Every structure is written in structure tokens, then in C-alpha cells.
């Protein structure tokens, strides 16, 4: 039965891609953008650009107001207590690097940082490098056979020496939600700080950072149907106070002299230089658009499409799905067929999926794989997109076998 997406027409690029015979199933890498965002960008640039937080003139005041309104919208989206808990960054990666540098002074040799075995490189390498700089121990929490953090093991591994845990909310390779409530509560009880990588999780459902109980939460705008070049870092007020300034320059300074300076607190103290103003404003417009959708309808649509995807893959001979995906995406390999060959033939047929290690080399290595194919969904996808993918997969396999 055909399952349309009621929101497909809100994303003009989907129609443009279709005219080029492209079926876009790579939303976990980046998403297409709603018209509301395009309008906001066009409005900002055509009505007078200006720098924020500096100028006394009218365009500067308007830009600053729009920029700060976006901060309020991000705070509302995550249910943060206060907009000052939201720092704009250049993406999830730069937010995680900010944390790894900003918190560095609090670590002593022999302290432990815990990450999971499924982390994206963005939530692994900043901590790995911090561990090397400060002689810390990086503890890797193992997974169960479904691709979720093995809770029993993890609770034993997070102990009094653990100073920080950094965990993905939703795996970008396995599509599994991680058991964060139990892990975060345990980390807090051990006196460890917690960082949640929400790059994938923030796109599916609404998440309440207060309820989640994390110290920090990061996400990228471009995966959430927003513009690229911008991301957000949420921090609990007490946790933000522990951050040292890490990038220096305009706007983040309070008083500067040749030999000494004092710096602003969060958020502005961590937004050195001119921020991506248009992108921040665009993110605000995207959040307005997303907030206008019926959350139950979106969730039902995404769940149903995801089930369709997983069932279709499972029905095909020789297809092995990685883990037990619960949302958004599924990765798979095919017995006796090289991923690169499948990827090649899907590309030839206009199916845009991702092949390779998905920026999680250690995870793939742990699964004994060189790579996998990932199909990921956005709210604009419909069942015809999946049907075209399955037809292309069948045709490709027939040719290869």
C-alpha cells in the first residue's frame, strides 16, 4: 500500500532530485531543506545583513534580535531552562571539540573517560586525543548483539575514576537508541560529567534535556533539516561554568589589553568571531517549521517507513542487517557480495545511499566488516522511495550473482 509523505511538498529539493532521477535515502548524512528555511535565508540576505552583538545601527539590532530569537527557539526545542544554556557552534563536531578542550583542565593523569563502542568519530577522537594529552584512560563500553550498549557491563565500567561519559543517543550506523537514562543516572551518581551526542537522535522525536539528565547535549543543524555550518551545544548552567575558554577573538572578550584580557561567560564567551548568522536565523525558521508539524503524525510516518525498510531488507536472501535498528536507518551487508559493487549499482540506478564505514571505523572493525550500505530516512521520504531502492537492489543483485 502506498504511504505518501504529507510533508514532501515542503521540501523543494526532493522534486528537483526526482527530476534528476535521484531517490534520496541518505538523510542521516545530511537532510534536504524546507521552503521555510530557504525563505528565511533569502529574507535575511535581501533585507540587510549585519553583524551581531556589535553594532548600534538598526540592521545590526535586527540581525542580533533574529539571532538571539533563534537561541530561544533552540532552548525551547530542547526544553532547556534558559536560552543562555545554548552555545552556537559550527556543528556537533566543533561542539564536541569545544568540550574536550574546555573541560581539559579538570582532568588528572589516570582519570577515566567512557565512550561506547559505536561512537561516530566526532564523539570518539576528541576524547581519545584528550586522553593522550592528559594521560587518561579511555574506557570503551561494549555493545550487546542488538547494537545497544551492554548496560550490565557498562554500569560496572563506569566507576569512581570515571570523570566523563560521552555517548551517542541514536547510532548513526545501527539505528539503535542507547539506554541513556540508566547510564546517565549512574554516571551522575559516580560524579562524572555526561555528554550526549544528539546528532542523529535530535532528528527523531522531541528530546527534553532536563528529563534526559545530561550535563551537555550537542547536535548539528544540517541533519535536522536546517542549514549547515551551525550546531548547538546545550549545557547545564553548573556544567557550563566548568568550561574554560578555548577560542579567542572578537565578541567573546569582556575587556582586552595587550597583555591581559577577561572573557564573557557562556554563551557569548564561547562564540568567538562572527558566527554563521544567516544559518542561525535559518535554523530558527526550520525549528518553527518542525514545531508546526503534528508530532504524532511524524512519528507514525517514520515508524511505518522504517518498518517497511527493515522488513524489506530482512525478506531478501543473503542480506544481513547490522544490529537491530529501531529508528531512522538500517545498515546491511550481503553475503558474498562486495559493498562497493552494490553501492556502484545503486548509484547507477539513481539511489542515493551511503556505503563505507560511516565515520565509525572501530565499530565496523569490531563487527568484522570493511563497510556496509546504509539507507536512512527523512520525513519527506515515502514508500515509493523505498520501493525504488528495493527494485534497484534486486536488479543489482541479479546482475552480480
Amino acid at each position, binding site marked *: 500500500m502506498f504511504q505518501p509523505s504529507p510533508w514532501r511538498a515542503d521540501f523543494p529539493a526532493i522534486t528537483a532530485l526526482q527530476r534528476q532521477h535521484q531517490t534520496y535515502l541518505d538523510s542521516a548524512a545530511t537532510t534536504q531543506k524546507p521552503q521555510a528555511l530557504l525563505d528565511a535565508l533569502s529574507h535575511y540576505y535581501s533585507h540587510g545583513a549585519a553583524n551581531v552583538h556589535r553594532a548600534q545601527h538598526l540592521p545590526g539590532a535586527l540581525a542580533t534580535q533574529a539571532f538571539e530569537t533563534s537561541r530561544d527557539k533552540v532552548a525551547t526545542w530542547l526544553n532547556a531552562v534558559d536560552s543562555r544554556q545554548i552555545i552556537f557552534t559550527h556543528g556537533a563536531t566543533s561542539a564536541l571539540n569545544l568540550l574536550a578542550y574546555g573541560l581539559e583542565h579538570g582532568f588528572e593523569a589516570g582519570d577515566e573517560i567512557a565512550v561506547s563502542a559505536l561512537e561516530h568519530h566526532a564523539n570518539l577522537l576528541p576524547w581519545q586525543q584528550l586522553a593522550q594529552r592528559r594521560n587518561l584512560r579511555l574506557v570503551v563500553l561494549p555493545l550487546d548483539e542488538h547494537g545497544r550498549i551492554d548496560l550490565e557491563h557498562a554500569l560496572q565500567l563506569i566507576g569512581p575514576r570515571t570523570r566523563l561519559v560521552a555517548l551517542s543517543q541514536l547510532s548513526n550506523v545501527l539505528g539503535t537508541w542507547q539506554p541513556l537514562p540508566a547510564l546517565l543516572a549512574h554516571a551522575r551518581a559516580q560524579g562524572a560529567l555526561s555528554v550526549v551526542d544528539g546528532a542523529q537522535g535530535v532528528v527523531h522525536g522531541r528530546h527534553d534535556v532536563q528529563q534526559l539528565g545530561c550535563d551537555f547535549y550537542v547536535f548539528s543543524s544540517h541533519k535536522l533539516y536546517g542549514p549547515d555550518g551551525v550546531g548547538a551545544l546545550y549545557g547545564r548552567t553548573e556544567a557550563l561554568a566548568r568550561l574554560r575558554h578555548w577560542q579567542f577573538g572578537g565578541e567573546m572578550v569582556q575587556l582586552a589589553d595587550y597583555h591581559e584580557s577577561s572573557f564573557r561567560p557562556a554563551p557569548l564567551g564561547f562564540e568567538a568571531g562572527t558566527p554563521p548568522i544567516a544559518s542561525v536565523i535559518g535554523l530558527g525558521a526550520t525549528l518553527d517549521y518542525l514545531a508546526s508539524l503534528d508530532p504524532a503524525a511524524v512519528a507514525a510516518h517514520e515508524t511505518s517507513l522504517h518498518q517497511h525498510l527493515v522488513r524489506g531488507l530482512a525478506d531478501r536472501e543473503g542480506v544481513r542487517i547490522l544490529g537491530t535498528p529501531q529508528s531512522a536507518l538500517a545498515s546491511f551487508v550481503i553475503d558474498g557480495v562486495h*559493498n*562497493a*559493487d552494490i553501492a556502484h*549499482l545503486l548509484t547507477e540506478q539513481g539511489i542515493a545511499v551511503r*556505503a563505507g564505514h560511516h565515520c565509525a571505523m572501530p565499530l565496523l572493525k569490531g563487527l568484522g566488516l570493511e563497510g556496509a550500505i546504509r539507507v536512512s530516512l527523512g520525513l519527506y521520504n515515502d514508500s515509493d522511495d523505498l520501493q525504488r531502492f528495493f527494485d534497484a537492489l534486486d536488479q543489482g543483485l541479479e*546482475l*552480480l550473482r
Partner: protein
Amino acid sequence: MSLPEAAQQALDTFTQAKGWEQRARLLMQMGDRLEPLDESDKTDANRVHGCESLVWLVAVQVDGQWRFKATSDARLLRGLLALLLVRVQGLGSDDLAGLDLREWFTQLGLERQLSPSRSNGLHAVLLQMAELVTSP
């Protein structure tokens, strides 16, 4: 400069191919005819990095002529490698340096396989080949 005979044959075949299916079949046939690489040549030093699949490329110069051997664990990439080798096999350094390999794949109707964003690695293979034949 006229094309080597094997290259002319490949060009004739590929320019007559219609649709992605036929091109893929031809690529697989080309790949199957690729001269196998000795296990002893499958070393780290001969690996082409920057590919999602395993690719090896060996270049030796005999009497001023370049002899290449290459293979991959991915079938379609083996076909692309075979198409590359028929064009460059036996050339001298000057001829090789003057050769536009992008143009060659464009003639074959396979230019899209050369994009740096493609994970198949043909782009990386060309870069490594250029490096091998220019370094002393």
C-alpha cells in the same frame, strides 16, 4: 596518437553499450579478464589508500615502458582497473605524462566514476599512478 589495440576494442564496446545494466555487465567481463595479481604483490606498500575497497597497484618500468598490474576485491572496480590498464600499458613516461585519463573515461561514458566523492577509489588510483610514474 592512435589508441593501443585493446583500448580501441574496449572503446568500441563501451560506446555501443546501452544503459547501466549493459555497462555493468561489460565492466564485470573486463574485470574477469584482468591478469591476476600475485599474493606477494598484495603488500601494504602497493595498497591504494583512499578507497573503500582493497586496491593494489604495481608499476614497473622495463626498457622505458611502463608495465602495470592492479586488482581489487570489488568486481566492478576490477573492471574499471582493467579499462585503465589497457590504456596505459606499455607507454613511456612522456606519453603517460601527456595522457588525459579523465578524457579516456569520459570517452568510455564512465566519467562519473572518477568523482573524488566516489568511494570506489578510481580517483585515488589515478592519483597514485601519477605519483608512481613521476617519482624517481
